[in-house]
């Protein structure tokens, strides 16, 4: 029993904790590239949605359209624009953090990379919960029709 306790104590003392290895770092350039691509794609998408909003407002001013309905549509488009633009900016930020961590392998940079990923998954998680709820309602309406 005594020997067992000593072994456990020695193991605990020698344990180096979690380490970022060369293997783990080998995936970072790929992740950086894809986050950069997704960030740019998201910003381009936000640009297109922004153009649609401008067009809708222009159409509303030109013709006599039900204001309440159009305001609702414009509100949804502005929400989509904010989501796309926010995700685009966040992904570009993540990409820059990975780039920094990969170039100067330092614990502060790794901590920033980790933190940016946490923020991304948190926001993506919240939005995906809302999206699934909307999807459930629309599927119920579709099936019920």
């Amino acid at each position, binding site marked *: 029993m005594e020997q067992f306790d000593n072994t456990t104590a020695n193991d605990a003392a020698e344990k180096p904790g979690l380490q970022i290895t060369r293997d783990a770092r080998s*995936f970072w350039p790929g992740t950086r590239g894809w986050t950069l691509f997704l960030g740019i794609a998201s910003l381009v998408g936000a640009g297109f949605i922004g153009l649609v909003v401008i067009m809708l407002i222009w159409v509303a001013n030109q013709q006599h359209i039900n204001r309440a309905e159009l305001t609702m549509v414009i509100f949804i488009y502005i929400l989509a624009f904010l989501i796309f633009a926010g995700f685009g900016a966040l992904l570009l930020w993540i990409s820059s953090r990975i780039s920094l961590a990969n170039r100067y392998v330092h614990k502060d940079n790794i901590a920033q990379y980790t933190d940016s990923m*946490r923020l991304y998954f948190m926001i993506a998680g919240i939005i995906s919960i809302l999206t699934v709820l909307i999807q459930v309602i629309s*599927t119920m309406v579709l099936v019920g029709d």
Partner: protein
Amino acid sequence: MLEHNEPLDQEIHHDQENNVPLPVGSYSTLAQTATWAKILAITNFSSAGLQLIGMFVVLDRVRLMLRYLNGGSNYILLMILVYLILISFTALIGWHLWNYAGRLKSALLYEDTDDLDLAYYYQFRYFKTLGWLVISGLILMVAGLLLFIYLRAMIGPYG
């Protein structure tokens, strides 16, 4: 100025040669990331299931609409293909997220560096699949637009 930089460069070089210990503060951050990644995985699986239900409902409506059109079954097959591509991508993204969260939790629980390596691998696969989903979506959008123009030319604007 150069004297100040030298030790820093050496330190970076030293870090790049060897394994870098994970900062202590990152443990809780990674735990939160794993939780959110798991939630995201579950919502992706749910979304894939809902898309599958939606596919059957929409296809039934389209089948009724295309009853009087020659070659209508081709369009239904095309729609099934598009739906299946989207459902597969959504499920695959969910699968990568599930693995990512699992490996991350395991790495933190058992302090296993190999699991952390795998977590970074699945994180890369997740973003890669998401990127290909975006590329596929763009291709499908262009293809859909071309099909719409073709159908409009065939049937006419009031057809």
